[in-house]
C-alpha cells in the first residue's frame, strides 16, 4: 500500500519536502509515521506533532487505507 504524506511548517523545512509517498509496514497512522521517519531521518517527530487522515485529526492508532492522505501537523500558530 502506497500512502501520500503531507508535511507542513517546520517539518516541511526539516525534510526539504512537503509531500512524499511511503509504503508503511502496517495500516495505521503510526505505521505511516514510522515509514516517514525512516525515509526522512532529519525529521523531528516528537510528541508535539499531531496527525490527520485526509482532513480530520487522527490518533496514531487510526486506520489508513489506500488513497488516504496522512498529514503530519507540527504545533500550529494561526491567529
Amino acid at each position, binding site marked *: 500500500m502506497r500512502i501520500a504524506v503531507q508535511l*507542513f511548517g517546520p517539518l516541511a*523545512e526539516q525534510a526539504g519536502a512537503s509531500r512524499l509517498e511511503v509504503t508503511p509496514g502496517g495500516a495505521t497512522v503510526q505505521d505511516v509515521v514510522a515509514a516517514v521517519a525512516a525515509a526522512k531521518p532529519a525529521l523531528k517527530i516528537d510528541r508535539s506533532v499531531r496527525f490527520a487522515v485526509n482532513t*480530520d485529526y487522527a490518533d496514531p492508532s487510526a486506520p489508513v487505507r489506500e488513497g488516504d492522505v496522512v*498529514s503530519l501537523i*507540527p504545533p*500550529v*500558530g*494561526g*491567529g
Partner: protein
Amino acid sequence: MFKVTTEPLSIDEAYAAVRRDDCGAVALFVGTVRDHHDGKKVTKISYSAFKEMAEKEFAAIAAEATARWKVGAVYIAHRTGALRIGDASVVIAVSAAHRAEAFDACRHAIEVLKKLAPIWKEEFYDGGKAWISG
C-alpha cells in the same frame, strides 16, 4: 463564510456576512501582525496552512459556537503568504441577538482556532527567523 486565502482580508466583508436583522450585536476580532516578539523586532511574517482542513476546522468552530451560544452567524477568514507589519492575519465576526453571546462566541472562536487550525507562522527578524506556535 470560512476561508483561507492569500488575498488581503476584508473587515467589511466579514461584517456584511454576519449582520442580520434579528441580531443586535456583531463582535469582530481582527488579528494583526505585530512589530515585536520577545524583545525582537519583527520585520515580516509568513503564514502557511493546510487549507482544506483549516476551512473545515473553521466550519466546525462555527458549528460549535452556534450550538453553545445563541448566535446568528459566524465568519472566519485567515490569510496566508507573506504579511507585513499591521496586515490583518485573521478576521472573525459573530452576530447574535445580544452582545454577551456575540463577545463570548467570538472569543471562543479565536481561542479554538489558535489551538486547532492547521496554520503555521514563521516570524522573520533582522538576521533570523523562527516558527511560532501557540
